[in-house]
């Protein structure tokens, strides 16, 4: 579809956007930052799904739409498909990606950063902070999925979990 842009540029832009919202705009309110990032993703997903469904007929049901997200949409965005799709047939879908492209370069500090003896051993909290920072980066793709699905006529809520880097899973709950 026409023009190309360097992947490093897009990656850096997304990273900077997340860090700008988390550390500068809403430094004290991470929930607001998360919602803003997700809203941006929503608009992006909305427009992307418009582009990528341009010559397709309407989707017959929710499962077809989700399969479109897993296969064509994901491969347009991340050059691979979703590795695993699970559903409970009652409106909840779990999309699992074993090597999420935007998480491949993320790695956490293996050793405790500060050797301050006066503080309690902060290994757990350091890991917790790193996990929280990483999860902030997943709000954007959640928004993309939600935007894409809502443009296809399926209102839903999307959340993400990281099992172990770089694998992550997105849980889509369709609103009845």
């Amino acid at each position, binding site marked *: 579809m026409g023009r190309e842009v360097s992947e*490093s540029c897009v*990656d*850096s832009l997304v990273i900077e956007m*997340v860090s700008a919202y988390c550390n500068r705009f809403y430094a004290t309110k991470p929930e607001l930052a998360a919602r803003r990032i997700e809203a941006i993703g929503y608009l992006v997903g909305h427009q992307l799904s418009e582009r990528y469904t341009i010559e397709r007929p309407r989707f017959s049901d929710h499962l077809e739409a989700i399969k479109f997200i897993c296969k064509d949409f994901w491969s347009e965005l991340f050059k691979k498909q979703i590795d695993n799709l699970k559903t409970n047939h009652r409106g909840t879908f779990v999309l699992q990606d074993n090597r999420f492209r935007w998480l491949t*370069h993320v*790695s*956490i*500090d293996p050793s405790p950063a500060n050797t301050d003896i006066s503080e309690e051993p902060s290994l757990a909290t350091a890991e917790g902070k790193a996990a929280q*920072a990483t999860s902030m980066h997943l709000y954007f793709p959640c928004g993309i999925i939600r935007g894409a699905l809502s443009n296809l006529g399926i209102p839903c809520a999307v959340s993400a979990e990281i099992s172990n880097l770089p694998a992550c899973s997105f849980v889509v709950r369709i609103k009845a």
Partner: protein
Amino acid sequence: MVDRKNAILWRIRDQPITISTDWIWEQWSYDDHKLMFGLLFSLKSFTAKMDPTNVEKGNLGVPQLPGQGCSFHSFQTNTYKLSFMESPSGIKIILVTHPKTGDLRESLKHIYNLYVEYVTKNPLYTPGTPIRCELFNTSVDQYVRTLA
């Protein structure tokens, strides 16, 4: 690895014992660090000054922009060989190896590539701080083992 402001970002040293290489994390003291930086800085400006092919030379001691003029890449003693590479952004990579090792410039470039991939593109890393990225450590480790 040392960055533009001469902060040591990451250290690892290899000493080959017979055929296999053995990696040793070593706690260099701050003095060693200063010595090394001073040596490399002087070597860089000295080699640029002594360059017979280059017409325009800065005075000795004037810091040159990275990449400008000729740049030295390794020195060798009877017990070890030190290879050096400086990127345009001021990141210096230093590799200390067995004296019989060949030209390591390609390897240094590869390590710099790994640095770009796993450190600069890591959203959890702030530039200028010591590098503590597990992916970077493991990938450099693996790469160097293939060199041995």
